[in-house]
C-alpha cells in the first residue's frame, strides 16, 4: 500500500429537529488515499494477487483508525471505495469486497453482517455517501443511516480512496416502528 494521506472525520450531533440528542450521536469515518496498485498496467485480468497482498493491510489500518476515532462501541458500520478517473470500478471493489479487507473490522467489533458499501469512479473532491447498517442484524431499522464524505484533492486519476465508517448508535432520535411490528 502506497498511502499518500489518511483522514479521520468525527461528527457529534447535539440537536436534531431542535430537540436534544443525549448522549450526542457520534459517527466516525477513516479514509486512506492510496496509489491505485493497477495504475498504468492497462487491463489486468487477475486482480487476486494484489488484493491478497494489499487488502488486509488497508483493512487493518482503517479498522484501527475508525475505532480509535469513534472511541465507543460500534453499533453500525459501512465502507467505501472511490477510484480515480483512470481506474476501473473493479479496482475499487476488488480492494474492499473481500474478507481480507473486512474481517479486521468485523473481528474487533464482533460484527456478523456484511458491510454495506459505496463504490464510485470520480474526480478529486467528489462527495460520496457511505451507507451504514447494524453490525449484528441488518434489519434493525433504527440503524439504517449514511454519512457524506469528500476529500478536496483526492482521488487523483491514479489513486483510490478507501474508507470505513462507524456509528455508536442509530440515527439521532430514531423513532420508526421496527420491522417486526409491521409483520405482526
Amino acid at each position, binding site marked *: 500500500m*502506497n*498511502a499518500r494521506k489518511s*483522514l*479521520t472525520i*468525527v461528527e*457529534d450531533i447535539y440537536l436534531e429537529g431542535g430537540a436534544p440528542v443525549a448522549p450526542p450521536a457520534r459517527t466516525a469515518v477513516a479514509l486512506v488515499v492510496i496509489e491505485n496498485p493497477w495504475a498504468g498496467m492497462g487491463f489486468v485480468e487477475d486482480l487476486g494477487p494484489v488484493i491478497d497482498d494489499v487488502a488486509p493491510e488497508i483493512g487493518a489500518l482503517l479498522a484501527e483508525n475508525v475505532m480509535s*476515532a469513534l472511541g465507543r462501541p460500534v453499533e453500525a458500520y459501512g465502507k467505501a471505495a472511490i477510484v480515480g478517473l483512470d481506474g476501473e470500478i473493479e479496482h475499487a471493489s476488488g480492494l474492499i469486497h473481500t474478507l481480507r479487507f473486512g474481517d479486521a473490522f468485523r473481528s474487533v467489533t464482533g460484527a456478523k453482517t456484511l458491510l454495506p458499501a459505496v463504490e464510485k469512479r470520480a474526480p478529486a473532491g467528489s462527495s460520496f455517501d457511505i451507507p451504514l447498517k447494524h453490525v449484528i442484524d441488518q434489519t434493525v431499522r433504527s440503524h439504517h443511516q449514511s454519512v457524506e464524505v469528500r476529500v*478536496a484533492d483526492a482521488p487523483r486519476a491514479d489513486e483510490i480512496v478507501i474508507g470505513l465508517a462507524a456509528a455508536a448508535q442509530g440515527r439521532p432520535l430514531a423513532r420508526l416502528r421496527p420491522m417486526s411490528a409491521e409483520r405482526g
Partner: protein
Amino acid sequence: MLRKVLTITENLFTELGVPVNRPVRKVAVVAVVANPWAGKGYVEDLQVSARPLAVLVANTIGDALLAEFGTPSRIEAFGKGVIVGEDGELEHGSALVHTPFFADVLRACVEGTAVMPSAEHRGPAGSRLVVPMGHKGAFATRSHYTGSEISVADAPRPDEIVVVGAAASGPRPNARVGDRTTDPPVDVATLRSARRTA
C-alpha cells in the same frame, strides 16, 4: 445553540510521490450553531450579544484541537473561518470570531500569539470554505501559510452559522520557497516596468 461538531483530521505522508520531510497533521474543527440574530431583522449591537456563544464555540473548538494534537506544542499554525447561512449577515459570523471572546480564547488553547488568518463567507448548506492558516507565533513565517478546505453536507441552514478553527502541526509539505532572510533584494520599480514591456 450548538447543533453539531465535526473534527476532520488529515495526516499527509507523501507529496508527488516524495515522502514529506515532516509528516504534517492538519485538523479542522467545525461547529454548527444557531445564528443568535436570526429572525430579528437588522440588529445594531452585535458585540455584547455575541459574547456567550463566541466563548462557548472557542472553548469547544480549542478542546477538540487539543484532543487531536495532544499538547499545544504540537501545533505550529492556526486559522479560523465562518460560513453564514443565507438569512444572516457576514457581520453576524464576524461578530462571533473577530473579537477577543473568540480569538483570545482559542489562542490561549493552542498557546498562540500571532494574528489568526480568517475567511468569511455566506452560502447554502454544503458550501465549501478554505480556512487559511498561518504560524501561530510569527505570522510572516512563509513556510506555514497554508489552508484546509471544509464542507458540511447539511450546514449552514439559512438561520445557522458554521464556525471553523483549524490547526497544523508543521509547515507545508516539503516547503522550499525560502523566507524574508533568503530573498534577494527586490527593486519594485524595475519589476513594475518589466511587467509593462513583457
